[in-house]
């Protein structure tokens, strides 16, 4: 979700998602990030800085930049 047109770099914040850098507009919530990444409505669980955040709290969780975020799902396994 990097490189949004018309948004200056200083209006963006950077977080780490699944080990890679992602930028989001300042003021974004976790809900906004999940939506921008295309994960809305998908079976996911999200961890921010080591804490699991339930889906109901995505919108109220505002990003400040620098967060370490993991977004996971189920895959086949034994």
């Amino acid at each position, binding site marked *: 979700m990097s490189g949004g047109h018309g948004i200056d770099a200083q209006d963006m914040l950077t977080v780490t998602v699944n080990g890679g850098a992602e930028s989001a507009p300042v003021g974004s919530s976790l809900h906004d990030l999940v939506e921008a*990444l295309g*994960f809305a409505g998908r079976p996911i*669980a999200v961890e921010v800085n080591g804490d*699991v955040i339930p*889906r109901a709290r995505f919108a109220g969780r505002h990003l400040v930049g620098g967060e370490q975020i993991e977004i996971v799902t189920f895959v*086949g396994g*034994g």
Partner: protein
Amino acid sequence: MSHSEAIAPRAQESADLPLVVGGHVLASRLIVGTGKYATYEEMARCLEASGTDCVTVAVRRERLVNTAGENILDHLDASRYALLPNTAGCYSAADAVRVARLGRELLRDMGSRSSEWVKLEVLGDTKTLLPDPVGTLTATEQLVADGFAVLVYTSDDPVIARRLKDLGAASVMPAGSPIGSGQGLLNPNNLRICLEYLKDGDPTYPVIVDAGVGTASDVAEVMELGADGVLLNTAIAHAQDPVRMAGAMRAACLAGRLAFLAGRIPRRLYATASSPDEGRIARPS
């Protein structure tokens, strides 16, 4: 009961109690993994053929590209199969606890009936995939304190098995042999001791053999020894004909369980004739 009912396998099966583990009642004593299948369609057919009602799944990073791709949950009926998340690939207690919590959150988000349990693996070595006993004990203690029913993969060491139960594990799951190795049950005597220790004064405590199964006779063997269930994956997924092997595993699990309940004859060094000695027309010289 009519004669036909008396000999029908179904009637024999119904005489058994279901497997109860972590508060869940499972009709099948096979727990089947969902990894390594050629396609999701083949996985679904194998699960059907195995008769299982509980399957394991792994927790992994969602892909940041190709998010239109299929998800395994599109091919798993969560109302039919209890989903048991694992912590596969974790090499520390801390990582395993994180993954267990993420798996629980995935299940809670789905509204699953089985969200508060986990198949705990804390591995010690990438080559053998043998469990790290110290990390496994640590993670079990933390997850039990966090409210999880912990089904814990461990070695066949009876002392560690007993300590895991003492820490509150919902099921201790000794490996028959290394994960995916297909070597079967390498140390039946250790499994016997695990069963004796874990079920001492607590006969319904569930002991599930997890890992190492190569073919159907391995499943029958551990069930005959008194294991409450078997967890397997590769032996089905990588068989030449996975769906047929899934059916073989189902039959072997039932056969082994029935044989355990029936009680085998003792082994003897010498023969005992099945036909009467009396009335023979000739005698041994």
